[in-house]
């Protein structure tokens, strides 16, 4: 069973005075169990709209979405999900520990298990010392950490995270990547949005690029690395010289240049492919618009 499946999802926001914003256009997406999926797109592309629809916060204009086979219009679809909203806000008159207790009870966790898991996630996210303080006094990054803690608390199978690294310091960002990698190892599914390509490169199996409400492409991250060879770097030692030099050649010119160098008596050291990284891949897709 797919962790998340989205079929023909469209969303039109109707504003005042008849203005319309087409936020999502006929979106299709299938995320398998155990998959880490990165949802990449520029600002205003429709990432948060997709995620809010998945969490039942907004109703799609057309199309439907399922989480673990359950339609997202039912609260049951959220039972197996850990959700982190974009720039989250939590009842600020509660402490982090109190909030986790509230969340755990809604997920019907048993008291001893809740206490154990609560301690575990608070320590993992470095909130243990602050756990009894009211969240009113938390910094932005600390609130983001509470958001991650409450998503991890009940050990769900599916994680839907809207910009999980936002607002975090470098240590926090690394921690989030480690957490996602750990979730992958434990066979969990993660769907997260971001606009930072390196985050996707380091943890994702697949990436989807959304631009202006349309899914432009969905690819395996390793395929992007293999497929995107833009040229080669040739390192050689020319005749009569004793220091190596490098030249960059395009894919089409490579055979001709190589035979030229050989006939000239050069000693070819290495021929290395130059790969397009995800960043360039992403920028290309967005620029095509």
């Amino acid at each position, binding site marked *: 069973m797919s962790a998340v499946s989205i079929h023909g999802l469209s969303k039109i*926001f109707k504003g005042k005075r008849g203005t319309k914003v087409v936020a999502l256009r006929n979106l299709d997406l299938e995320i398998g169990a155990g998959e880490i999926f990165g949802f990449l797109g520029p600002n205003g592309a429709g990432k948060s709209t997709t995620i*809010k629809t998945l*969490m*039942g*916060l*907004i*109703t799609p204009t057309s199309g439907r979405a399922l989480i673990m086979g359950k339609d997202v219009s039912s*609260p*049951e679809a*959220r*039972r197996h*999900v850990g*959700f982190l*909203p974009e*720039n*989250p*806000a*939590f*009842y*600020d*008159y*509660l402490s982090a520990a*109190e909030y986790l207790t*509230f*969340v755990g*009870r*809604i*997920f019907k966790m048993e008291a001893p298990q809740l206490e154990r898991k609560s301690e575990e996630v608070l320590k993992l996210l470095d909130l243990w010392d602050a756990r009894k303080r*009211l969240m009113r006094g938390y910094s932005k990054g600390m609130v983001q950490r509470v*958001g991650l803690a*409450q998503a991890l608390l009940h050990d769900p199978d599916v994680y839907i995270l809207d910009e999980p690294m936002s607002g975090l310091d470098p240590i926090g960002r690394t921690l989030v990547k480690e957490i996602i990698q750990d979730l992958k190892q434990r066979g969990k599914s993660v769907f997260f949005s971001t606009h930072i390509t390196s985050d996707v490169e380091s943890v994702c199996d697949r990436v989807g690029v959304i631009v202006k409400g349309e899914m432009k492409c969905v690819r395996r991250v390793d395929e992007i690395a293999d497929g995107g060879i833009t040229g080669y770097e040739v390192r050689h030692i020319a005749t009569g010289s004793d220091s190596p030099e490098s030249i960059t050649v395009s894919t089409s010119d490579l055979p001709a240049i190589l035979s030229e160098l050989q006939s000239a008596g050069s000693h070819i050291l290495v021929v290395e492919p130059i790969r397009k990284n995800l960043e360039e891949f992403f920028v290309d897709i967005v620029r095509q618009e």
Partner: protein
Amino acid sequence: MKNVAIVTLKGIFRDRIFHGILVNVAFFVLIPSIATLSMRQVTELSLTLSLSLVSFILLLLSIFLGGTLLWKDIERRYTYSVLGLPLTRGRYLLGKFAGTAIFTLFVSIVLGVATYLVVSWVSIIYPPERAILWGNLTVCILFEALKYILVIAVAFLFSSVSTSFFLPVFGTISIFLAGNVTQQVYEYIHSASGSALSPLVCQVAVGLYYILPNFSAFDLKVNAIYGIPISLSGTLLTFVYFVLYAAIVLGLAVLVLSRREMR
């Protein structure tokens, strides 16, 4: 639902509005000295003042809590995190309402105790001509509590529609004012002098009488102050009215909130 109610209660107790309104309780201390100024009917006067103060504090609480609690959750985007949990909108709204209603009952008990203390104190110093009917006083305060719980339900209905606190707060105040006079208007129309009104005005007024909550039915202050017996059938009817009216208003609020987009 229970969990939302608990969290709501915690929030109210830690809220500044509540602390501010609580300061009004200090006015109870002044009541005995004000009441003695009147030399005659000191007990009646202290009862009147106490019950007015109870009513006033409960009114402030119901308008400000009822009108802002739900709206604040939406405004501060707490709804994203809470409604992202496996919780229906209905359970969420009813949980919040239950927390607020329990709090109102709690405050009513505290204010009731304050009234008892003030009135007992005054009646020791100035023994009243008529025995105080403590039972009437208790029933009176209980119905005050029910009245303001109904006000909160109305405020929740407004909050479920609105995107600002304007409509919930001022809408509730208007409904409260109107709901206190519908009974009088209704009686006026059916009196001799009311027959001079145009039929259209009468129909509108009668329509409003049935749609708007009838708050005057909850007012038993006169019975408590002057020791007039309370009719059992009347209070039962009012209680049934309370249950039905609150159920309808909350049902509507749940319906509206369930269709609302959290964006």
